[in-house]
């Protein structure tokens, strides 16, 4: 008899689980019947629908995503999403931060687009636009943009817009190319975040002063790095993360680069590129002033153990919490006469499978208005992607850091920044996967610069479509 009761209870448990499984479909159901909902597929937007209690004239739910680089940035974009949610008519927004891990962010997105669960609007780095566009993962919004009054692609930096309007059919770019893949979220560039306490303690010259005097070159940089490194075995002069941005700078600054001028072949083996790489290798191996390549330099920098930390504007919200005196300075000038900086950008693009392209396009525009960009910039995360003196002037007031000019110096024409860009003639992800490990081998002492130069382009050139 006892057994029978147990059997009953077991059955109850199972039934309960099965029934409870439908607890929220109850709240989901009305939304599913909303006219906007596509009938055929379980649309990606459904997860959001649970949050919006049923209203007669249901808002179109849109999900959007950008990659935050730290928890401070998540707060910035959550705020933006809330602001836009109340200002955009007929659209309910849900912001979801993606993962922060380097390339993983894009890979996860691709998996989700394939599965049909990706957000309606998402941000991708400039390097990946070609890959997403040629795979058909993102929507060509040129037809929508043509119908939009007052939309002007010229308002944004031309570097990003060149790639965002590139049409692989006919290899044409520009306003009349018939292609528009998205709008740039912002632009950014590298600067060196300085731990002034360490630099002062080491008695090293102030890089900001040197920059003003025009003496901030590779030698001056090395001098400061060595002096601060001498403070102790756990104190480093320089720190940079292990991805293409930081190492690319040294190649650019000596007149080299990743590809040739029209981006159709590898140029990693030119004498200039190798010169830049050699200097960087020496920083890691010979002078031993840098945090070990491949280990994240941000924790030690925030812990006050790195004097100069190379990173983009996106690191500012996080650095604002450090307990020491800090500022930023532009990158040192290389043999080429320029700091070799990047013009980083990423774009908001629209999921090719979205059920609401019109609304998504509205959202993309709203996310890139001067006003929104001003808010993001004020919170510290980035530099507006619209070319306007007002925006730049406003940017300067978003302190700390006091020396915001360092970022702007990085993107002026005079500094000749290289625009981050996708490979339309090949696969950037594959190029990156060949270049990255090889450079890492050089910087960690596993390979000589000569060996690198002798073999790298043989491998890297294979990713270009003939």
């Amino acid at each position: 008899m006892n057994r029978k009761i147990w059997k009953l209870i077991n059955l109850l448990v199972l039934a309960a689980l099965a029934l409870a499984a439908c607890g929220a479909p109850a709240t989901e159901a009305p939304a599913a019947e909303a006219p906007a909902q596509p009938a055929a597929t379980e649309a990606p937007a459904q997860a959001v629908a649970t949050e919006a209690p049923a209203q007669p004239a249901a808002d179109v739910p849109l999900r959007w995503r950008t990659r935050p680089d730290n928890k401070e940035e998540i707060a910035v974009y959550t705020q933006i999403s809330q602001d836009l949610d109340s200002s955009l008519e007929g659209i309910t927004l849900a912001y979801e931060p993606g993962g922060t891990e380097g390339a993983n962010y894009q890979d996860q997105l691709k998996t989700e687009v394939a599965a049909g669960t990706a957000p309606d609007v998402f941000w991708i780095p400039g390097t990946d636009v070609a890959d997403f566009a040629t795979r058909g993962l993102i929507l060509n919004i040129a037809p929508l943009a043509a119908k939009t009054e007052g939309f002007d692609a010229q308002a944004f930096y031309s570097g990003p817009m060149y790639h965002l309007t590139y049409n692989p059919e006919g290899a044409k770019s520009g306003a009349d190319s018939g292609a528009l893949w998205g709008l740039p979220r912002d632009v950014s560039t590298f600067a060196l975040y300085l731990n002034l306490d360490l630099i002062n303690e080491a008695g090293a010259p102030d890089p900001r002063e040197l920059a003003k005097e025009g003496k901030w070159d590779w030698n001056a940089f090395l001098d400061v790095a060595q002096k601060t490194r001498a403070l102790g075995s756990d104190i480093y002069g320089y720190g940079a993360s292990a991805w293409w941005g930081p190492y690319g700078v040294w190649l650019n600054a000596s007149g080299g680069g990743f590809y040739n001028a029209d981006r159709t072949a590898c140029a990693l083996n030119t004498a200039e590129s190798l010169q830049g790489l050699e200097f960087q290798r020496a920083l890691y191996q010979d002078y031993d002033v840098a945090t070990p390549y491949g280990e994240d330099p941000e924790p030690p920098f925030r812990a006050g153990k790195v004097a100069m930390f190379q990173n983009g504007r996106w690191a500012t919200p996080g650095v604002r919490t450090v307990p020491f005196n800090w500022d930023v300075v532009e990158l040192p000038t290389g043999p080429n006469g320029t700091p070799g900086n990047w013009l980083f950008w990423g774009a908001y693009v629209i999921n090719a499978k979205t059920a609401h392209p019109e609304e998504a396009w509205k959202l993309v525009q709203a996310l890139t208005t001067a006003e929104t960009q001003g808010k993001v910039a004020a919170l510290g995360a980035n530099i507006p992607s619209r070319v306007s003196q007002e925006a730049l002037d406003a940017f300067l007031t978003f302190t700390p850091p006091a020396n915001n000019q360092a970022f702007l110096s990085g993107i002026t024409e005079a500094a000749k920044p290289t625009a981050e860009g996708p490979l339309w003639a090949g696969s950037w992800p594959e190029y990156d996967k060949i270049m990255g490990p090889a450079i890492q081998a050089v910087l960690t002492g596993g390979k000589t610069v000569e060996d690198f130069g002798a073999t790298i382009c043989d491998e890297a050139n294979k990713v270009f479509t003939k």
Partner: protein
Amino acid sequence: MTEIPNQSNKNPARQNEFILRLLSLWRGLFSVLAASGAIAPWLGIFPNLRLWQGLLLTTTLGLASIFSAIAAAEIIKRRHKGRTISLFIDYLGLVACILIILQVGGVFIGIDALAEVFGRSILFLLAAFVGYLISAAGDYFESRSTTQKILRQVGKWIVLIGMVLFLLTANIFQGLLAIINKLANPMGITAIVSLIIFGLALWGMWREPTASALKAKTNHEQMLNGWLFLSPNLLGFLIFFAGPLLLSFYFSFTDSDAFNTPKWVGVENYAKILNITIKPLAAPDQLAREALDIQVYDEVGRIKFGNGGILFGAEDKLFWLALRNTLVYALFAVPLSVIPALLLSNILNSKLPGMKFFRAVYFIPSIAAIVGISLVWQWLYNATIGYINYFITIGVEFWNNLFNTGLIDPKINWVSDEKTALLAIIIIAAWQTMGFNTVLFLAGLQNIPGELYEAATVDGAGPWDKFWRITLPMLAPTTFYVVSTTTIQAMQVFEQVFILMNPPEGPNNSTITLVLYLYRSGFQNFKQGYASALAWVLFIVIFGLTLIQFQNQRKNSLYE
């Protein structure tokens, strides 16, 4: 149940006859329905149907139709075969209907919603579990029946109250409403109606009078029971294991990329994976492009000797690097987690006090999540502030002071140096799997009869002799089991690398493993066809390794 039994309640034999006739009629009807269903996809009724879906539908329904027709004939002839086939078809139909109802009713997808409220309702579930424990505790008081009774009663009530609260907090009524709501469409209603029909047909065929009318025997009952018992497992296994496995095999011959329809490419994927070349080198440092066709091959590695050497090139360099890394990893991780475990188990097998405690402690690492473990080790391995380098520094200083030597602190960049990255992973693996293996060995040791040791003691064998002559040979089956499972696991290393390394391929691809490469091909580059081919190659490698171990084990046991 329904009106069928009531209709002719007075005469069981006639009633039975009637049901049998109904059943054969149903079989015929079903046969016709299924046949028309099988033809339907080719008449352009479902424009969205893809080719393979149409084929699948036609094959399934066509077979059902044919068998159903046979069954109808057999039932009319009163042969038991008709009953078997009928039961099979109706059962499968019933299961299909249930699945469709669950899917259409959103029960599977609704698990997400359950998770929503699970947080608050889990407490009540726990309460119910505690109630069960209290009730079960009653069994310990067999001698005192009143205590036992009270405990059981209390336990029962707690369970009941907990369950009710659990159901309430889990929004049971909302859930019910939601299901009904979702099923209120043609698809859902059809499924429910079919469910009832299949259910009735099953009941009609299963019942005793029908069985005896069709001359059922005990072995028939056993067969039906057997398939019935096996069915949940077998169906799930076919849908989620065997089916995908076949699909994987098919994909491996296509260029499937998850976005477009796959195209058949024959053995191209395999050819690319396995395309290698070995060339002599004129000089140890000769450039790869001079020795091999650089348009096709990349250098994987070279062996230098004298003033020449051998160059190893492959079309897919990363696969071969991954294979090398994985094999090296297994080559070190397996012995490092098996040999210490073997020694340890011999120590722990003694009857000294505290052994159970140590056994438990060694076992702990193997139950922790690898992702969590890897995060912990990531900070231990940190080159600047990590404990491992700190201990090395202390050790070096201690040694230098003690022996007045001038050893230099190596300051290893564990995860960012290509020489140590794989080693770092191996150490974690050894640490993590050793305890588990120790426990397996302990079990093996306890199965060795004590008389063997006693006899050896009489013969004057020392502990070392005993270990080599008795323990090792007697443990051979356990050793085989441990080594082969550890190897199979080691060949699939992924999590540690993915978490610990940034990027996961490690410095200069030194930690790219087969599974990592498979993940990358399939879900980053979306060459899913290629990834499937990689999966089959990985399987063949694992299979080969296990086979070798098996041969070894057989050979060794022959000698004993």
